[in-house]
Each structure stands twice: as structure tokens, then as C-alpha cells.
């Protein structure tokens, strides 16, 4: 604290000395020093002058008679506040009730929003390429090219029905009936149902049996003398009934939502199948039958999806194209059963 130059004591110490805040020994020491140090003496003189001026300037004089009633004013205020806590508690309580209600509402909204998101956005498997929803014009000439195109728009399909040529006789097995035999549920909303839920229903188990040994499609499987397309209301009702049985009820307009959101999802399952798996195993029967409906028997045995040509060559207007992706075990025999990851129904109904 002490300086080695002319000033033996710091301004803090000299100020404390002036304020009488030092111990006796230090006070004596400064007293002796100030007598012999003109600068410290002058410092203390200035400090005294300034302190007196500050004290004079900061001297407060309350209005006359102010303190005569001050005690009673405080007592009245205390008495008032003793009565107020009830009001304050009531207000406080309502505030909490309101806040709790708002929080509960927000929670419900968030949860429902999250559930809706889960329903509408099913994670697509790794490398999943969305099914074609729009038919590019250049594919008309390329029959053998795969029709899977990412970034498809379901709206274009819904509003642009594909008319099949009339030269081919139109007797195609209804997709709804095909789904009954080959899929756990023909309802398009399957895409939004988690795989675990599908497994719980037991429908997937049935599908697993079917899909474990994909049926070899032949020309005999393609009945050209069967029913007309599923455009009839009776057929749709039948499809819906089948869907309800499988507990996969979804509104019809829900198809689009699932279609739009499913490809955008990142895979979350640990055993997400690769593109090859999806193409080689899961979609094969379904797509094959779709192609079969389009009268392309050669493609029926391949996992490639239907082409535009196939659709156009179909003997009747294609009303529904159902695409189901089922994940089969990736060579892992420990996996007990395949899982349905998504199902998309594309409505191509025309006139």
C-alpha cells in the first residue's frame, strides 16, 4: 500500500485517515508523515475542503412537519398491505391457472402436430427412389427405361389421368383385389403407418409369407377377362372395407399427403433396405402385377416398375396403381419378418 516515492501513503489511505477509518498505529504513522510532507498535507487540505462542500451540498432538509406524520403514514400503508395479500394471492392463483391452461393447450398442439407429422412423414429407406407420379413424355419412347423418378408430384397424377389405348381389351384385375392377395392392406394409408403397427396387426405376417417367396408372374396370372378397373364406386367401397379390416383406415385424400412426404424422409430404421433390396424383393410382386395389368408379361417377372408404355398399352384406364415397399432382411436371418415401410397408392383414374 505504501509508495516508495515522495508519497508514502496512497490517496485511499489518506482518505481513510481523513474519514477516521484507520487503526491507531496507521493513523499515528500518517499524522507524522503529513507533518513532514507538504503534498500529502495539501492533499488532505483539499480533501477536507471538498468533503465539507459535498456535505453542505448534500444536506437534506425535509419539508416542515413531514416527519410528524411519517410514522402514521407507514402504519396505514402496512395495514393496507396486510389486507391486500388475499387479493394478490387470488390474482397470482388465476395467473398460474391461466398459464397452466395455456401450457397444456400448447402441449396438446405440439403433440398432435408431432403425431400428424409422424403420420404424414414416414421415413423412406436408404436410397429409396420415389415411385413415379408424373409420366415424362420422353419415356413414352423408352419402354425399357425405369419409370422411377424422384421428386414426383402426386397432384399431376391426380389431375392427369392416363388413358389406355382402346385397341387392347380391357380386362384387368382390379388393384384392390390384387392387394388383397399380395399385400397386408390395400389401403393407401399404409405408407403412413409405422412398420411396428403394421406388424402388430398381423397383416404384415401374412404379407411376409407372401413376400418371402415372391410369386413368379406369368401370363396366366394376368387375366384379361376379369373385372374392369376399380373405378367403380362399388369396388372402392370394397377396398375401403378391406382396409378397415386390416385397421389401416385412412381417408382417400390422405394418399397425397403420404405420397408427398414419404420420399423426403430420412431413414430411421436400423435395417433400412438398400435400393437394390427394395427393387429386388419388395416391390417386385406388386409392380409386376401392375405391369401385368398393363399387359407386359415379360416385365412381370422383373422388379422394375411399370413404364409409361406399359400403362399406356394397358387395355383399360388405370385407376389405381399401388406401390408397396416392404423391407426384407438384409441377409440377416435373425430378422424375424419383413417390415412394411411404406405404401403409396397413386390414383390415375380418368374419365
Amino acid at each position: 500500500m505504501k509508495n516508495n516515492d515522495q508519497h508514502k501513503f496512497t490517496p485511499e489511505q489518506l482518505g481513510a485517515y481523513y474519514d477516521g477509518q484507520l487503526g491507531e498505529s496507521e493513523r499515528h504513522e500518517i499524522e507524522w508523515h503529513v507533518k513532514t510532507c507538504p503534498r500529502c498535507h495539501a492533499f488532505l487540505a483539499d480533501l477536507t475542503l471538498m468533503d465539507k462542500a459535498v456535505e453542505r451540498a448534500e444536506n437534506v432538509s425535509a419539508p416542515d412537519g413531514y416527519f410528524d406524520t411519517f410514522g402514521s403514514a407507514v402504519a396505514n400503508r402496512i395495514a393496507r398491505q396486510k389486507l391486500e395479500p388475499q387479493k394478490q394471492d387470488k390474482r397470482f392463483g388465476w395467473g398460474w391457472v391461466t398459464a397452466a391452461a395455456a401450457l397444456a393447450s400448447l402441449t396438446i398442439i405440439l403433440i398432435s402436430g408431432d403425431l400428424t407429422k409422424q403420420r404424414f412423414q414416414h421415413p423412406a429407406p436408404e436410397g429409396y427412389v420415389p415411385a413415379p407420379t408424373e409420366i415424362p413424355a420422353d419415356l413414352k419412347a423408352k419402354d425399357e427405361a425405369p419409370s422411377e423418378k424422384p421428386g414426383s408430384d402426386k397432384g399431376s397424377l391426380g389431375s392427369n389421368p392416363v388413358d389406355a389405348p382402346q385397341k387392347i381389351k380391357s380386362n384387368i384385375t382390379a388393384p384392390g383385389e390384387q392387394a388383397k392377395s399380395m399385400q397386408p392392406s390395400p389401403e393407401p394409408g399404409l405408407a403412413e403407418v409405422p412398420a411396428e403397427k403394421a406388424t402388430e396387426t398381423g397383416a404384415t405376417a401374412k404379407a411376409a409369407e407372401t413376400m418371402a417367396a415372391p410369386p413368379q408372374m406369368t401370363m396366366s396370372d394376368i387375366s384379361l377377362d376379369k373385372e374392369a378397373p376399380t373405378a367403380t364406386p362399388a369396388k372402392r367401397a370394397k377396398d375401403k372395407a378391406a382396409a378397415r379390416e386390416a385397421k389401416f383406415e385412412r381417408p382417400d385424400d390422405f394418399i397425397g399427403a403420404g405420397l408427398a412426404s414419404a420420399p423426403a424422409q430420412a431413414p430411421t430404421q436400423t435395417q433400412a433396405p438398400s435400393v437394390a433390396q427394395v427393387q429386388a424383393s419388395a416391390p417386385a410382386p406388386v409392380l409386376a402385377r401392375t405391369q401385368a395389368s398393363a399387359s407386359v408379361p415379360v416385365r412381370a417377372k422383373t422388379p422394375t416398375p411399370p413404364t409409361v408404355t406399359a400403362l399406356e398399352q394397358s387395355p383399360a384406364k388405370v385407376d389405381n396403381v399401388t406401390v408397396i415397399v416392404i423391407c426384407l432382411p438384409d441377409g440377416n436371418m435373425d430378422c424375424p419378418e419383413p417390415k412394411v415401410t411404406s405404401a403409396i397408392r397413386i390414383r390415375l383414374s380418368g374419365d
Partner: protein
Amino acid sequence: LEQQTDQALIAQTLAGDNLAFNLLVTRYQRAVYAAAARILRDHDLADEATQETFVKAYFALKQYDDSYKFYTWILRICLNLCYDQLKKQKRQTPLDEALEHQGPDPAEIFAGNDACQRIRKEIDKLPMDQRLVVQLRVDKDLSYSEIGQTLKIPIGTVMSRLSRARQTLGKSLKEIL
């Protein structure tokens, strides 16, 4: 009763004797009002702050730590209220008014001439931490230790803040002192 210590009066107040608390009010009302008036520079605001200080002290008396002086405890309540009031004033005062009036006219409660006004203005220009130490030190009853208790700072900090404030005031008030 009037000669009883603060602690005894506090105990009686907590026992339900409101007269004891009234004595505490009478004992410290001038000092608390003066401290509030020095900071707020306005009688009405100081009156409000002083009354509220004692009301708050009454309802918080159970939390009083008797290892500190009652005066420093109640002064701390007052300083907090004054500080809140200053912040409120700062928010509410438009810029034009703030430029015209550096604060409420203290003429009614502060005696003195123009020199005293100038000194108060210079004090008000100090940083708040230094200003509070200077204004508390005007009350000679408060030691460095008690100022430190009131502001919750060490004695060394009290000394250094006071010294810096005095140096600043010494420079700014050199011509009038």
C-alpha cells in the same frame, strides 16, 4: 422503550408489538429519507421510497440477520428501491426532457447556493457505484465497513471507489472550491 436496542425492538415487533416498529421508524426515518433524497433528488420520490422501505422492512423482518446493523439492512432496502426508481425514470424520461432537465429540481429539499447545485450535478455525473459510496459517506454515522455491508462490497472496494470519486470531484470542482 425508546432506549431499547434495535434488536429488542425487532423482537417485540415480531412478537406483535407494532409500537416497537413505530419506534424503529422514528429512529431511522430521517436518515433513510436523506439517503433516498440524495439519490432521487426529489421529495415526492424520496417520500415514496422511504415509506416503502419501512413497509418492506416490516414484512421482511423475519428475514433480518441480526449480525448486521438494522440501519444498514434497512438502508439497503432503500437503495434498491431508489435504484429501481432511477431505472424507471430513465425508461420513462424522453430524450428531449432529459437534455433539458438533468433531473428533478432539488431546490426544495437541498439548501445552498449555485455552488451546491454544481456540486450535486457533479456528484450525479459519477458512476453509480462511486456515487453511492460518496452519498453514503456524507452520513458520517456509516463507517467503511457499514457502507460495505450496505452495498455488499469489501472495505477495500469502498476505499478505492471513494478515493476515485473524490479525485474526479476534486478535478471537476477545482474552480469553485
